[in-house]
């Protein structure tokens, strides 16, 4: 048995039954990291000693009736605040920043016996789709190291795919969990906006950001979301999803489930290989009793411009606090306050962050607010309406995660517009605040994973997870692992 290829729940069961100890599992993961992360660069911080110490402590506390993920090691995206452990957001501005508090989701995974192995690399302040804009260097895709792992949760996705940890917590603003999950052959879930606390998640675009799991399969996602979800008195935007137990309600029975395929998501620009893999998913679901329907959601046409207006606007404001006054990097040379601000921020932010700050500043500035920001808000409303209409005739929507498989390193930096446009399928769920799941559905001609996305109505997580669970009963793409594909 190769420990690092188990699912999180399998490892949890092995720990509970005494077949594996928590230090053994932790040790195995740390060894993988030390062997391969020099080339992958998935972790900004690796907590070797702390993790081993915690593993020993947890092992002593082992008893019946604990969480199914008790003792299972994980990675945290490095924009989730960890008390006493530096949290950099992939930025020079927070290179040495040590938060004095834990994010709510961090508290939650710790409370159920999580072992945090390290902090996953990301695009600077989660702004990007490739994990190439990190101050700490790009992360590589374990399936093919010349490729990007996707982003912005690319470090976490690469890490879980490479067997460095059994699951990870990422964040998703326009696809930052689902897209890297797709590129790395993982199952990832962006929950309904508000069902998981953002307290302690360093904000990129507050009205779109959600924390969620990156896992090896749907059942793991259900188990992690069971832990993460819930109203938090410290985050005013949280709501109670009333999910009951997501893991315990997985049945794999999808008979009669209405699966909608939006025509807008299978048109121009979509790689035919990706299209084919996703159509095959539809066939599998149909085979298990689902009913396929074609739907049209013309409102999706404007999602990309609307997304970039709203996200950049909020980012320009959210990133204003990195000014060299209270924490983080401060430039060494300046003659006055304005220079201190400008030098600190200019030296601290990378190019992509600067571009988005400028764009956000532009769309909010006097005379442009009405022309851009208000219009983008209108699109957001229209997308909500369009998706609501679709969910009146179907239960879940099936789309690709991205138009293509993982691009080569450097490719996206050379053509950023193409990168922005590739968020087409993932962004609607963020704009509408709806849950969406990404799951592996095979590989392309070059052996790179292809992802299929399931989108559901508000609080429809159970539907999504059960559909993916049913699909994964029928297929074993989620069991494929990179590096020569040694199956389990």
């Amino acid at each position: 048995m190769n420990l690092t290829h188990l699912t999180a729940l399998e490892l949890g069961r092995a720990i509970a039954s005494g077949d594996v100890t928590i230090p053994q599992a932790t040790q195995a993961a740390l060894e993988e990291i030390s062997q391969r992360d020099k080339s992958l660069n998935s972790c900004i911080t690796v907590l070797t000693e702390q993790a081993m110490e915690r593993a020993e402590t947890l092992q002593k506390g082992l008893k019946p009736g604990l969480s199914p993920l008790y003792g299972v090691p994980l990675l945290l995206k490095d924009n989730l605040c960890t008390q006493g452990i530096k949290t950099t957001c992939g930025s020079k501005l927070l290179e040495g920043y040590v938060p004095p508090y834990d994010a709510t989701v961090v508290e939650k995974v710790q409370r159920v016996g999580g072992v945090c192995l390290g902090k996953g690399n990301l695009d600077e302040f989660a702004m990007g789709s490739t994990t190439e804009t990190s101050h700490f260097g790009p992360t590589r895709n374990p399936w093919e190291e010349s490729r990007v792992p996707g982003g912005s949760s690319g470090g976490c996705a690469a890490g879980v795919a490479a067997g460095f940890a059994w699951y990870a917590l990422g964040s998703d603003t326009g696809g930052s969990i689902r897209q890297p999950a797709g590129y790395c052959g993982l199952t990832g879930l962006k929950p309904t906006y508000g069902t998981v606390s953002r307290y302690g998640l360093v904000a990129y675009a507050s009205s779109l950001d959600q924390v969620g799991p990156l896992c090896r399969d749907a059942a793991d996602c259900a188990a992690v979301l069971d832990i993460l979800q819930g109203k938090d008195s410290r985050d005013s935007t949280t709501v109670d999803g009333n999910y009951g137990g997501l893991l315990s309600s997985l049945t794999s029975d999808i008979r009669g489930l209405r699966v909608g395929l939006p025509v807008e998501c299978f048109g121009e620009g979509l790689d035919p290989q990706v299209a084919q893999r996703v159509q095959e998913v539809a066939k599998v679901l149909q085979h298990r009793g689902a009913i396929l329907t074609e739907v049209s959601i013309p409102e999706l046409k404007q999602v990309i411009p609307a997304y970039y207006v709203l996200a950049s606007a909020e980012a320009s404001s959210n990133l204003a606090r990195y000014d060299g006054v209270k924490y983080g990097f401060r430039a060494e040379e300046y003659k006055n306050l304005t220079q201190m601000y400008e030098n600190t921020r200019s030296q601290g932010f990378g190019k992509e962050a600067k571009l988005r700050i400028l764009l956000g500043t532009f769309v909010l500035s006097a005379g442009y607010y009405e022309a851009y920001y208000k219009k983008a808000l209108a699109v957001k409303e229209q997308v909500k309406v369009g998706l609501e209409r679709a969910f009146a005739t179907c239960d879940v929507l099936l789309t690709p995660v991205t138009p293509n498989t993982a691009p080569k390193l450097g490719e996206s930096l050379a053509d950023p517009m193409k990168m922005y446009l590739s968020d087409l399928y993932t962004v609607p769920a963020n704009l509408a605040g709806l849950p969406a799941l990404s799951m592996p559905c095979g590989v392309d001609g070059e052996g790179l994973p292809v992802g299929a996305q399931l989108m559901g109505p508000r609080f429809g997580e159970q539907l999504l997870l059960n559909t993916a669970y049913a699909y994964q009963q029928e297929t074993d793409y989620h069991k494929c692992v990179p590096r020569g594909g040694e199956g389990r």
Partner: protein
Amino acid sequence: MEETSKQVRKLAHLARLSLTPEEEGELAGRLEQMVSYLEALSQVEDGEATEATSAVSFRPDGVAPSLDRDKLLENAPQVRDGYVVTPRSVGEGDGA
């Protein structure tokens, strides 16, 4: 392009970024490309915002312990006598 550069400088100042000429050129180009792409939004009709899906929940007016000052200031670049120190603020624009 000249016009764009001027506007980029204005935006950069609003956002407290100082750009090198090279950066300014590149970012001005990319920004122009983005903005022209965003023009698509002008076709969008203003819609009525639908009613909010949630209302803010309140916190009772009770005092909770503040953060230990040493811990709070641990991350500050410059501290003196419990104060955070910055270059002189007078004459650099002021509060609202």
